[in-house]
């Protein structure tokens, strides 16, 4: 299926209706974040990082449209 796959983890997973869902193609991660905030306003209050295809990103990153995007709250393993 076309589009981005969004996966949420930890606390973020509990704040969204689904832990994994499809999302329409976006040009870059800034656009994606804006759409996610629009769709799920409660995300705005949460601290999380983005990973694109399992790589943490620090800045706006272009998207092809079929990436796996992960919403990662601060890690708390160990």
């Amino acid at each position, binding site marked *: 299926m076309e589009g981005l796959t969004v*996966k949420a*983890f930890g606390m973020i*997973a509990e704040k969204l209706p689904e832990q994994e869902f499809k999302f329409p193609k976006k040009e870059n991660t800034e656009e994606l974040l804006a759409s996610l905030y629009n769709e799920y306003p409660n995300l705005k209050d949460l601290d999380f990082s983005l*990973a694109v295809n399992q790589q943490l990103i620090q800045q706006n990153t272009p998207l092809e449209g079929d990436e796996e995007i*992960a919403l990662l709250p601060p*890690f*708390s*393993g*160990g």
Partner: protein
Amino acid sequence: MTRKPKNIFVEGPISSEKIAKSIQNHSSKTNIGAHSIFLGQVRADEKEGSVVRAIEYTAYEEMALQKAFEIREAIFEKYNLTCMHIYHSLGEVKTGEICLFVFTSSKHRKMAIDACEELVERIKNELPVWGKELLENSDENWKVNT
């Protein structure tokens, strides 16, 4: 030989039998002179009128395994180690049980100890793993690493 990511996750607590067996497995590697072992244990922290009874761990497994592999390669590069093992629990681990087992072996103690310490720090900071504290009064609280 190129190394590949290997599984580090264990369902539930890490048993003392597993730890003992892991030590025993190294007895044939007689070039080892020092092992350093770190064990993370679930602590019964007090939280707003209740107390932690267990931590439930979840992970972004594919990313965590890839990241653990990168960390492992970097530590092997930096320290002169004979071997290195990492085990982290997933699912529920009760207070007093072991949730993280890091094991480094070397010819001499300094390398093993320093590598083990750096490995534990990097695991806690860089692996996409989350702990949810389950409290005695049925409340839940997302763990924050300090």
